[in-house]
C-alpha cells in the first residue's frame, strides 16, 4: 500500500485520468455505437472519473495538516523564457478537485438516465471528461498563464458542448454566443497576462501575491499600468462567471443538454471565480479594479436575482442565479474577503448542483421547462420536491445549512469594515433569491395539477439516485465543513447579523409562499408595473443591446472593409491594369506605317526634351 505522501506527490495524475477517458470516449463514433450501444462510453468515463475521485480524496487526506506542496512540471524553455506548469497541492486545491470529480461522477450517472435516447454519447462524454480534466488541472494549477490556457480550452469545450445538438438553430446561436462572449473575456485576460509578466517576472499566483505585498516593487509601476492590468484581470472572470454585461451567454447556453448545464452552472462557471480569488492580491493594487469588481458584482447580484424571479423558464431561473451568486463572490473578492468568497463558491456549487438536478428531474417527465405549465407535482414527486427544498435551504442563508455559513462571515467582514452598502446588497440579494426559488418551487410543486404534470412520475433511478445522493451531500455539507475546520465558530458569530440574514431569507420565502404556494393573489405579476416586469423578464433587454452595439459594430466594420477592399484597394489595382491596357490599345492606332508621322512625333518630342533640358539657360537669358 503506497504511503499517504505518495498520493499527494502523484496528484498531477488527477487531470490525466479524465483526459484518458476523453481520448477513449471520442473513439465511439456513431458507427461504433451502433455495434456496442452507447453505454460502454459512459462506463469508461465513469471509471476514469472514479479513479480521479479516489485519487483526489486520498491526496486530500494526505495533505491534511501539511504545508502546501509545490510541484513544477517543465513545459517550454525558449530564448530565456521558461514556462513550467506549477502545481500547488493543499487541502483547499485537492478538496476542490475532489468536489469537481464527485459532482462529475454524479452528473455522469445522471446523464446516462437523462440522455438515454441520444446518439452522440462519444462526443458528450469526451467533452464532459475534457471539462473534468480542465477543471481539476485549473484548481491544482498555481500559474496565471496556465489558468488562462485552461480557461481558453474550456471556452472551446463550452462551444462544442453547447453546440451538442447542432442541428437546431437556437443551439447554434447559443454556442456561438457562448464562445464569443467567453473569448472576449479570455482575450482581455490575455492582455493582462502579457502585461503582467514584464513587471513581475512570474505568473505563479503564490509569487504574484509576494510581489504585490513587497514594498518598493509595486510603487515602481505607473498607477495607470496597474489599473489597466487590474481591470484586465477582472474582465476575464467577468465573462467566465457570466457577470453583467457579459452574462447573456450562460442563459443561451441552456440550449445544451441538461446534464452539462448542471456541470456548467455548478462547477465550470465557479472556476472563473476561483481564478479571480487567486488574483485578488494583484487586483487589490488598483482601486479602479476593485471598484469595478464590486460594481459589476453588485449589479450582477441584485440584477440577476431580480431577473431570476421574473423568469418562466425553469432553466433560466437557474442561469440567472449563477450570475447572482458569482456576483456576490465578485463583491467579496473586491472587498478582499477571499476566504468567504471560496466558502461561498463551495456552498453554491453543492447547492446549485442539487437544484439543477432536481429541476432536470422535473423537466424530464413533464417534458417542458415552462414553469407556467407546471403545478401540483408535490404528491407525485416527493423525492424531487424534497431535494429541491433542500437545495433552496442550502443555497440561501438558512441555518444550519451551507449557504448560511458562507454568507455569515462575509457579512461579518463587511460589518467590521463598516461597508454598509455591500452588507445591504448581500442581504437584499439573499431575500430576492429566496423569494425567486420559493416562487419556482410553488409553480412546480404546489397548486393544481396541469395537463403537463398529470402524468409525470419520478424518472428512472439513474436520474433519481444521483439527485438523492446530492441532496444527502448538501444536507451533510455543514458536517464536512466542520470536519475541515472551515465552519465559522457559532459562539462568536452569533451576532445580530445572523438574525438579519435569517430574517432576510425567511422574509423572501414568506413572500414567495404568500403568492405562489398558498396563493392569496390570482395574478401576482399584475402587482408589478408592466415595464418593470418586462424589463426583468427580458433580461434588461441585453440581447438587443448586444445587437445594437458590439455585433452591429463588427458587422458593419467588416462590411465596410470588404467594400473598401473590393472597390478601393483592388479597384485601384484594376484601374492601373485597365489604364495600361487602354493606353496600349490606343497607341496601337498610331502605328500607321507612314514615315513622316513617325518623324514628326520624334521631332516634336526631341524639341520638347530640348526645351526642358535648356529651360534654365533660357530663363536666365530672358531675365
Amino acid at each position, binding site marked *: 500500500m503506497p504511503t499517504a505522501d505518495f498520493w499527494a506527490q502523484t496528484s498531477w495524475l488527477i487531470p490525466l485520468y479524465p483526459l484518458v477517458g476523453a481520448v477513449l470516449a471520442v473513439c465511439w463514433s456513431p458507427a461504433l455505437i451502433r455495434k456496442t450501444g452507447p453505454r460502454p462510453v459512459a462506463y469508461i468515463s465513469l471509471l476514469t472519473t472514479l479513479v480521479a475521485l479516489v485519487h483526489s480524496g486520498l491526496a486530500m487526506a494526505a495533505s491534511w495538516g501539511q504545508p502546501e506542496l509545490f510541484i513544477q512540471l517543465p513545459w517550454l524553455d525558449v530564448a530565456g523564457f521558461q514556462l513550467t506548469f506549477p502545481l500547488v497541492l493543499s487541502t483547499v486545491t485537492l478538496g476542490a478537485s475532489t468536489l469537481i470529480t464527485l459532482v462529475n461522477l454524479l452528473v455522469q450517472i445522471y446523464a446516462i438516465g437523462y440522455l438515454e435516447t441520444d446518439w*452522440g454519447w462519444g462526443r458528450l462524454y469526451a467533452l464532459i471528461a475534457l471539462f473534468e480534466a480542465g477543471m481539476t488541472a485549473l484548481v491544482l494549477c498555481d500559474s496565471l498563464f496556465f489558468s488562462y490556457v485552461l480557461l481558453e480550452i474550456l471556452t472551446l469545450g463550452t462551444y462544442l458542448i453547447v453546440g451538442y445538438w447542432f442541428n437546431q438553430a437556437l443551439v447554434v446561436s447559443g454556442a456561438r454566443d457562448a464562445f464569443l462572449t467567453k473569448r472576449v473575456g479570455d482575450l482581455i485576460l490575455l492582455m493582462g497576462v502579457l502585461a503582467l509578466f514584464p513587471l513581475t517576472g512570474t505568473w505563479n499566483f503564490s509569487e504574484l501575491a509576494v510581489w504585490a505585498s513587497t514594498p518598493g516593487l509595486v510603487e515602481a509601476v505607473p498607477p495607470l499600468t496597474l489599473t489597466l492590468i487590474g481591470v484586465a484581470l477582472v474582465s476575464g472572470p467577468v465573462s467566465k462567471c457570466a457577470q453583467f454585461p457579459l452574462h447573456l451567454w450562460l442563459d443561451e447556453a441552456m440550449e445544451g443538454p441538461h446534464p452539462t448545464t448542471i456541470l456548467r452552472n455548478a462547477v465550470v462557471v465557479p472556476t472563473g471565480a476561483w481564478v479571480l480569488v487567486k488574483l485578488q492580491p494583484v487586483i487589490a493594487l488598483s482601486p479602479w479594479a476593485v471598484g469595478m469588481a464590486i460594481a459589476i458584482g453588485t449589479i450582477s447580484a441584485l440584477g440577476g436575482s431580480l431577473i431570476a424571479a421574473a423568469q418562466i423558464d425553469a432553466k433560466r431561473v437557474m442561469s440567472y442565479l449563477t450570475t447572482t451568486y458569482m456576483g456576490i463572490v465578485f463583491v467579496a473578492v473586491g472587498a478582499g474577503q477571499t476566504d468567504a468568497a471560496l466558502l461561498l463558491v463551495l456552498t453554491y456549487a453543492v447547492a446549485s448542483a442539487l437544484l439543477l438536478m432536481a429541476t432536470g428531474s422535473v423537466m424530464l417527465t413533464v417534458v417542458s421547462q415552462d414553469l407556467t405549465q407546471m403545478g401540483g407535482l408535490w404528491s407525485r414527486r416527493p423525492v424531487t420536491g424534497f431535494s429541491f427544498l433542500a437545495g433552496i435551504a442550502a443555497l440561501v442563508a438558512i441555518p444550519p445549512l451551507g449557504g448560511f455559513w458562507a454568507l455569515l462571515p462575509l457579512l461579518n467582514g463587511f460589518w467590521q469594515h463598516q461597508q454598509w452598502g455591500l452588507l445591504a446588497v448581500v442581504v437584499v440579494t439573499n431575500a430576492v433569491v429566496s423569494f425567486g426559488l420559493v416562487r419556482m418551487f410553488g409553480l412546480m410543486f404546489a397548486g393544481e395539477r396541469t395537463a403537463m404534470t398529470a402524468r409525470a412520475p419520478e424518472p428512472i433511478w439513474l436520474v433519481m439516485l444521483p439527485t438523492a445522493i446530492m441532496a444527502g451531500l448538501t444536507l451533510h455539507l455543514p458536517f464536512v465543513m466542520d470536519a475541515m475546520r472551515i465552519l465559522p465558530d457559532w459562539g462568536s458569530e452569533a451576532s445580530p447579523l445572523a438574525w438579519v440574514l435569517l430574517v432576510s431569507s425567511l422574509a423572501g420565502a414568506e413572500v414567495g409562499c404568500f403568492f405562489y404556494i398558498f396563493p392569496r393573489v390570482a395574478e401576482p405579476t399584475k402587482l408589478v408595473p408592466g415595464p418593470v416586469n418586462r424589463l426583468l423578464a427580458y433580461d434588461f433587454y441585453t440581447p438587443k443591446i448586444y445587437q445594437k452595439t458590439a455585433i452591429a459594430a463588427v458587422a458593419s466594420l467588416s462590411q465596410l472593409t470588404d467594400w473598401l*477592399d473590393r472597390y478601393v484597394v483592388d479597384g485601384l489595382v484594376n484601374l492601373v491594369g485597365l489604364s495600361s491596357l487602354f493606353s496600349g490599345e490606343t497607341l496601337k492606332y498610331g502605328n500607321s506605317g507612314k514615315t513622316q508621322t513617325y518623324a514628326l512625333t520624334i521631332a516634336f518630342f526631341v524639341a520638347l526634351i530640348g526645351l526642358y533640358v535648356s529651360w534654365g539657360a533660357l530663363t536666365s537669358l530672358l531675365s
Partner: protein
Amino acid sequence: MLSTLIWLPLLGAIPIALFAQTAKQSRNIALAFSGAAMLWTVWIFSQFDLASGGLQMQEFVSWLPVLGLNYDLAVDGLSLMMIFLNSLLTWIAIYSSSSDIERHRLFYPLILVVSGGVAGAFLAQNLLLFFLLFELELVPLYLLVAIWGGPKRAYAATKFLLYTAIAGALILASFLGAVWLGDSFDFSYQQVLQNQLPLVSQVILLALLLVGFGIKIPLVPFHTWLPDTYVAASPPVAILLGGVLAKLGTYGLLRFGMGLFPDAWALLSPYLAVWATVSVLYGSVTAIAQKDIKRMVAYSSVGHMGYVMLGAAAFTPLSMVGAISQMVSHGLILALLFHLVGLVEDKVGTRQLDQLNGLMNPTRGLPLVSALLVLSGMASAGIPGLVGFITEFLVFQGSYIVFPVATIVSVIGTGLTAVYFVILINRTCFGRLDSQKAYYGKVSLTEHLPAFVLAALVVVLGLRPGWLVQWSEVTSASLVAALPEVEQVQLAWQEETSKENISFARQVPLDIALGE
C-alpha cells in the same frame, strides 16, 4: 547534401513528363520523389547542430564569378524550418491532388519544379541565386493556376504573375543597390553583410524590399492578388501558395531585409509594427465579411502574416522565435484548412458559406471532415493546446516589451479570428443538413491521410512546442544580436538627415547610372 532538396524534385519531373502513362502513375512517381525529399529533410534535421547559430552544411560551386553569381547553399535555423514546411507541404499537395487530374504529365512536374525552386531559394546564400530561384517558381505557378484553376483562373493567374513580377523587380533593385553601393560585385550573402551602407541608402533599399516582399507575404495594401489567386487555384496549388510561397516573403524579409539592412530595420521598426497591426486587423475584419471559405482563409492569412511581421518588427529573441514558429504553424494550419475545404468542395460541390450546412451530421454529412475543420479553425484562432496558440503567444509576449500598444491591438485581432472561424464552423458543420440534397460521397481514409498528418502535427506541436521552437532558437538569437539599438539608430538618422547628407544620398543612384 542540401542540393539534393533542389535536384531530387527536378529530377523527378523528368520521368513523369517523359514516361508516365496514367495520372495515377504520375502521381505515384511524384509522391515517391517528394517523399524521398521529405525523408532527406528529416535526415538534414538529424544532422543539424542545434547549438550553432551560424550557417551549416555549406555547399559552394563557382558559377558565374564575373556577375558575382555562385551556387552557394547553406542552412540555419530559419532555413531549416522553411525547407521542412516546403518538403512536407509539397508531399501533401501532391497527395491531395485528384488522382485523375487532366494533363498529369505537366501538372506533377510543375509542382515538383516549384518545390525544388523554393527549396533552393530558402537555402541560397547568394543574392542573385535567391532572386533567380524566386523568379523561377513564378512561371510554373502561373501555369498551375491558369490551367488547373477555377472559373476566374486567367484573371487570377495574370494578376498573380504581374504582382510577383513587380515584387521581383523591386527585390532585384534592392539587391543590386545593396551590393553595388558597397562598391562590390560579389553577391554572396556573407560578403554583402560586410558592406557598411549609409543609413539613408539602407532605408531606401529596405523600403524597396519591404514593398517587394510585402507583395509576396502579402501585407495590406499589396494583398489583393491573394484572395483572387487562392480562390482560383485548385486546393493542392493553394496549399503550396499559402503554405510555402507566402513564406518566401517573410523569409526574405527576415533574411535580407533584417540581415542586410539592420540599421534601417531598427529605424523603421516602429512603423513596421504599426503596419503589421494594420495588416492583422484589416485581414481579420475583412475575413468576417467573406462568403467563400477560400476567400475567408485568404484574408485570414493576411492577418496571420501580420503576427510574423509584428514579431520581426519587435526583434526580441522571443518574438523572433515566435515569428519563425508562426510561419511554420501558419503553413501547417493553412494547408490543413485548404485540404479540408478541397474535400468539402469535392463532395458537396460548393464552398459557399450560405449554401453549406450541417456537415457534422454523423450519418449523411462529413463528420470527420467537420471535426478536423473545427480543429484547424480553432488552431488558427489561437486556442491553446494547438500549435497556433503558442506561436502567437511567443510573438505577443516577445513584442509586448517593445510595442505594448501594437501587441494589445493585435490580440484583438485573434479575437476577430475567432469570430470568422465560428461563423465558418456554424455555417458549414452545424445546422440542419438538407436531406433532399445530402447524398455526399464518403471520404475514404486515404483521402483523409494528409489531414491526419497535419492535424497530428498541429496537436503534438501545440502540446510540446519545444519540439518546434528549438530549431530556430539559436538562429533567432544571432539574428537579433546583429541588430542595433533603436535609439542609437534614431540618433544616427537625425545626424545624417540634418545637413548636406541628403543631397549626397540623392546623388548615389546617379553615380551608379554613370557606372562609376
